[in-house]
């Protein structure tokens, strides 16, 4: 039998206080010939053995820590007492101690449910509850931050799949932590009542384990989809950078922790060095990622128009050449000039927003012409009204006297045309056309002809 086939790694999904569920699971695994060997940060490791009837007991030792180089003196005392009754340590998961015995009808490790509940609660307060509260706080914080961005600029924000995925992941995290904390509180109160009534702890709910597996499956579906989606937009390096950052920090964290444990470093030293290493790794990877992004950005440096000023100084005007959906040259004869084109297009499962700005300037850097367009689109009928309203929203800084008014032109064949007015007068040359699923806004520097408007909106209505 190869080494590989003698070992099995499983991603188990138990809540920390589900001692009964873990006991039953390990007994089932042993009866199939897989004995628990150790619990690593990500996987539970089993070794091949002959199928056997083994009793497992899960108990909690609040003093124990993942940073201990080995069992503490008190923990060893506790394990010695257990060994006297035939119980051997199989594995440890933070404060959780998993023991097994081959004895028939062994004496249970815990015979006082009230004291057992206190030990579980003390272990939970040391480990599970602080991390759950921290994740809950982080989820709420992130949802508020991302949510305020959505409220402020809904179309721009929700047209980014990254924002949607991040929102979804933090929302899942929030629900999971609420379920975890609520589930524990419910079990704790039920156990207190059950001890009063029957002297036994309440059974933990098996659905918590199923929910955990469901969430994990959901995340495993979402993340590859996210990577694929970002790859389509040629931004997959952002996701890969995020994954590399998380994986890098975790790898450093667990490697340093494991190394210091093997070196028998005291718990406090291990904690300080592990946290410092994770912090430094985070900073290091951030600096590396940041410099990579800067390199990528600097490789896209624009051309520069240098204009010598009367005083001999030089002013530089950047000339960008982003791909745009509509060019000034498509609408009118343009004089020989320097044209700078800037554009951005973002597409998510909800919205698409594409805008472009073209500016023409003469050899002295003086602005000759300008055109701006913005397309806001959704393929979801439920969001069409919302999309249109937000696309035409002038923002909180626009004067109240400004509004979009229907604007008639003879023989206009496209959907209704709107023009921006300030009071009774038109406000510059800003026009909008609303299709069922798309709203296009166009801003020109000078009054366009009907033919130019028709040409521009025809192109932008299909682009």
């Amino acid at each position: 039998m190869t080494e590989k086939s003698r070992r099995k790694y499983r991603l188990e999904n138990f809540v920390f206080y589900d001692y009964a569920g873990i006991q039953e699971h390990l007994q089932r695994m042993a009866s199939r010939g897989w004995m628990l060997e150790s619990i690593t940060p990500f996987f539970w490791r089993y070794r091949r053995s002959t199928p056997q009837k083994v009793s497992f007991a899960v108990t909690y030792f609040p003093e124990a820590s993942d940073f201990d180089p080995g069992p503490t003196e008190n923990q060893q005392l506790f394990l010695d007492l257990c060994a006297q009754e035939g119980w051997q340590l199989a594995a440890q998961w933070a404060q959780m101690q998993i023991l097994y015995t081959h004895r028939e009808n062994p004496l249970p490790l815990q015979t006082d449910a009230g004291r057992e509940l206190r030990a579980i609660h003390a272990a939970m307060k040391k480990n599970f509850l602080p991390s759950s509260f921290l994740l809950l706080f982080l989820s709420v914080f992130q949802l508020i931050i991302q949510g305020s961005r959505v409220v402020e600029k809904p179309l721009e924000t929700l047209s980014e799949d990254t924002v949607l995925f991040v929102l979804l992941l933090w929302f899942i995290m929030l629900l999971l932590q609420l379920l975890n904390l609520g589930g524990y509180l419910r079990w704790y109160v039920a156990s207190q009542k059950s001890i009063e009534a029957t002297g036994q702890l309440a059974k933990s709910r098996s659905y918590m384990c199923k929910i955990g597996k469901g969430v994990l499956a959901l995340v495993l579906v979402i993340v590859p989809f996210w990577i694929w989606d970002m790859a389509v937009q040629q931004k997959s390096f952002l996701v890969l950078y995020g994954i590399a950052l998380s994986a890098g920090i975790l790898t450093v964290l667990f490697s340093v922790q494991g190394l210091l444990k093997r070196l028998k470093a005291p718990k406090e030293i291990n904690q300080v060095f592990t946290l410092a290493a994770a912090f430094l790794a985070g900073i290091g990877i951030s600096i590396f990622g940041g410099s990579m992004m800067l390199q990528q950005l600097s490789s896209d440096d624009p051309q520069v128009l240098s204009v010598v000023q009367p005083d001999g100084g030089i002013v530089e005007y950047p000339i960008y050449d982003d791909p745009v959906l509509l060019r000034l040259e498509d609408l009118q004869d343009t004089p020989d000039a320097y044209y700078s084109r800037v554009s951005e297009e973002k597409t998510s499962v909800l919205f698409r927003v594409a805008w472009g700005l073209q500016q023409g300037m003469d050899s002295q850097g003086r602005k000759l012409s300008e055109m701006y367009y913005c397309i806001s689109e959704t393929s979801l009928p439920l969001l069409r009204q919302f999309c249109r309203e937000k696309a035409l929203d002038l923002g909180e800084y626009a004067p109240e006297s400004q509004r979009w008014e229907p604007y008639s032109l003879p023989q206009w064949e496209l959907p209704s045309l709107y023009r921006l007015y300030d009071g009774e007068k038109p406000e510059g040359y800003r026009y909008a056309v609303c299709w069922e699923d798309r709203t296009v806004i166009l801003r020109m520097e000078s009054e366009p002809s009907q033919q130019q408007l028709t040409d521009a909106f025809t192109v932008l209505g299909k682009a």
Partner: protein
Amino acid sequence: MPREKFEALTEQMFYILLCLQVECYGMDIMQKIRTLTDGRVNVGPGTLYHLLDDFLQAGIIRQTQVQGRRRCYLLTEKGAAVLEGEYQRLKTLTEDYRRFQKGVEDL
């Protein structure tokens, strides 16, 4: 209203303290209780460890010897008072029971 800690002892606490009137190794307590109660009362090793820890914290017992990983414990004066208090409480219960039973039989 919750009970004051150790105001009323559980059966397991009572037998542990009973054994510790005489200096005793933690490891021997489980067997002593089993023998004393003819196997009726069993204290699991996990429970024993936690209860000994609680008693030490409360000054009800003290550690007398440490031999390697073996530790010896003995009841303190406070512990003796707690044990005596529990005995008196149980005795009162028993006497109340007898008095009431006698009353029932006399009816």
